[in-house]
């Protein structure tokens, strides 16, 4: 039996009498779960969190957190929660230990309890040996970890994490994810996080709440959300790009194929998506200027070849080399055919369609190298429920600038 630790009813926040940031939102959060608010910038995720944490007063509606009403009993709510903000809220002129100590004092922890917990939390986030250094000497990931430790120091029932990995590099992000999971399991803390990274929501959350324009447009487990996109993506790989071009019209005219996309010269989907992930991060934080090649469902890149994408990007040379090396062996003896050798089809019940697809290709005499089936990703789901790509910047200019600043800070102060 699980009980609801948060019950929100018709939560609404209107700024300046006209800007509806959160629009009659109702939801429950179960004790011990990790719930993710997924949505683009400005969707109302942070505003919802601010209301639940009593920082903002709802315009109408209310919620209970750990059984306490956010309007009538803000103190009791505050005692039940920990909050890790999107902006860094550490005092960088103080040491890590001092930051924790101050937090403990404010929450009324007695000296010995405080020291015990500080020791414990520093170990949890693996910062024990840096505890007495000034926070300004910490890397972005270390600061985030310290903030998480601080949010947990008073043993909250619910921990709010607002964009916990914004601007962090992939390894640090992964480490933070693991911390969050461990905390959730070991300490049984209910965790509510906001993110606009679909990978993050998919990896961490028991349930995901997709928010767009202040409304909940979907609330379900990641798997069930993905199941909403009926169909599968069947990836076909051919010997060369001519074959792909030859086969393309064959499927475009079939009514059971919803979509045909060509994937530029790339055989290794894993390498591809890894690169996309890295590039996406850089485009998002402005370290690469220009526009991102549009992602189509299934993570395919039209028009631009992989090698070309790597060359055009301003990523560090060692990364370029790492990525190109990944497929040099495969491509080396085939010359430099970087045209699309791969085609993705969105079809119903892909597993059963494969024999038919193979048969159709066989008849043309084109040699099929491999067939692969994959399920739609959360990116695809987001696109389908909101009609927009989550990567599109939807936030206000100020919000975007703010996030860029956070990201710059996270990166710049890494030592």
């Amino acid at each position, binding site marked *: 039996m699980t009980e609801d630790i948060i019950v929100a009813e018709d939560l609404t926040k209107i700024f300046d009498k006209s800007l509806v940031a959160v629009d009659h939102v109702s939801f429950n959060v179960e004790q011990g779960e990790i719930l993710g608010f997924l949505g683009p910038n400005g969707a109302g995720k942070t505003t919802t969190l601010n209301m639940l944490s009593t920082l*903002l007063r709802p315009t109408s509606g209310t919620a209970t957190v750990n059984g306490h009403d956010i309007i009538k009993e803000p*103190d009791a709510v505050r005692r039940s*929660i920990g*909050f890790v*903000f999107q902006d860094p809220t550490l005092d960088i*002129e103080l040491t890590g230990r001092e930051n924790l100590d101050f937090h403990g*004092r*404010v929450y009324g922890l007695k000296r010995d309890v405080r020291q015990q917990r500080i020791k414990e939390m520093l170990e949890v986030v693996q910062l024990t040996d840096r505890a007495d250094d000034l926070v300004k000497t910490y890397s972005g990931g270390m600061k985030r970890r310290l903030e998480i430790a601080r949010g947990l120091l008073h043993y909250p029932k619910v921990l709010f994490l607002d964009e916990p990995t914004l601007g962090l590099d992939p390894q640090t992000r992964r480490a933070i994810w693991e911390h969050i999971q461990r905390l959730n399991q070991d300490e049984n803390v209910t965790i509510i996080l906001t993110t606009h990274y679909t990978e993050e929501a998919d990896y961490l959350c028991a349930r995901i709440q997709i928010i767009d324009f202040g409304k909940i447009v979907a609330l379900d487990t990641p798997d069930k959300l993905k199941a909403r996109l009926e169909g599968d993506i069947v990836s076909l790989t051919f010997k060369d790009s001519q074959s792909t071009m030859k086969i393309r019209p064959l499927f475009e005219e079939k009514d059971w194929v919803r979509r045909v996309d060509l994937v530029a010269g790339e055989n290794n989907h894993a390498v591809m998506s890894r690169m996309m992930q890295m590039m996406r991060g850089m485009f998002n934080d402005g370290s690469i200027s220009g526009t991102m090649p549009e992602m189509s469902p299934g993570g395919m890149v039209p028009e631009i070849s992989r090698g070309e994408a790597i060359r055009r990007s301003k990523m560090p040379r060692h990364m370029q080399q790492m990525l190109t090396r990944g497929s040099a062996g495969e491509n080396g003896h085939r010359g430099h055919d970087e045209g699309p050798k791969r085609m993705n089809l969105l079809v119903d019940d892909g597993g059963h369609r494969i024999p038919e697809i193979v048969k159709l290709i066989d008849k043309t005499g084109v040699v099929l190298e491999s067939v692969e089936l994959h399920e739609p990703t959360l990116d695809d789901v987001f696109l389908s429920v909101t009609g927009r790509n989550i990567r599109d910047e939807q936030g206000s200019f100020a919000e975007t600038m703010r996030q860029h600043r956070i990201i710059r800070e996270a990166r710049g102060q890494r030592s």
Partner: protein
Amino acid sequence: MVQPLSGQATYVILLRELKRFWRAKARIIASVAQSFFFLALLGSGLGGFIGGFGGVKYLSYLSPGMIGMSLLFGSVFSGVSVIFDRQFGFLKEMLVAPVSRTSIILGKILGGAVTASIQGILLMIVAGLMGAFTTTVTFIIGAIASVGVMMLITAGFVGLGVAIGSSLNDFHAFQLLSTFIMWPIFMLSGVFFPIDVAPQLLQAAMLIDPLFYGVELLRWCLLGTGTTILGPFGWMISLGVLVGFTALMVSIGTYLFSRVQV
């Protein structure tokens, strides 16, 4: 909902301000040095021309005013820094803690007052070393009393800073604040010339400047002299005005801060 005051929260904020202040030694030195240059250059340069006012040499006349300037800028900026604190920092974290805003802001005001007063005391020592004061027993008693006066002045101006910082959302207004609020307060406080020699219109403006009373009181403590315009019991008037100003500013600052939304 009224939350009880939390001594711990006030103490934490005070402690934080002190630690930060202590670690920013370069800034303290710069601030004291700035006032030192004023004293050294104006005190000797202008002083050689003017001689003095009200029976004291110009350097001595200038010193309480320079201390006043240091107190003013130190405390207002410390108060206004709630803008940064609440948007990017530490204070935001405190706002989700189960403590009242009042206990937080009292800590801020206390911290700002103590740190700005420390700068004032340092400057008093520097001025003393330059020979601005005659070290008699009366002076030592006055100097000790002046520390209390400094706390009173700074608490009031940190309150003003907090009130401004809580109402502004934009730190680009900083420049405006400095030009249109702080400099007039500073220039009208009777730092460079006594109110008695000023034209009437200027006198009226000086009389509504709270720092004028602060500097007046400091001068009375440190030099035993005052203006004639406030009469023989001028120091009592000054003290009264200052207490009223500080009480008002701390109240307004606390009130406005309690209404701040993130």
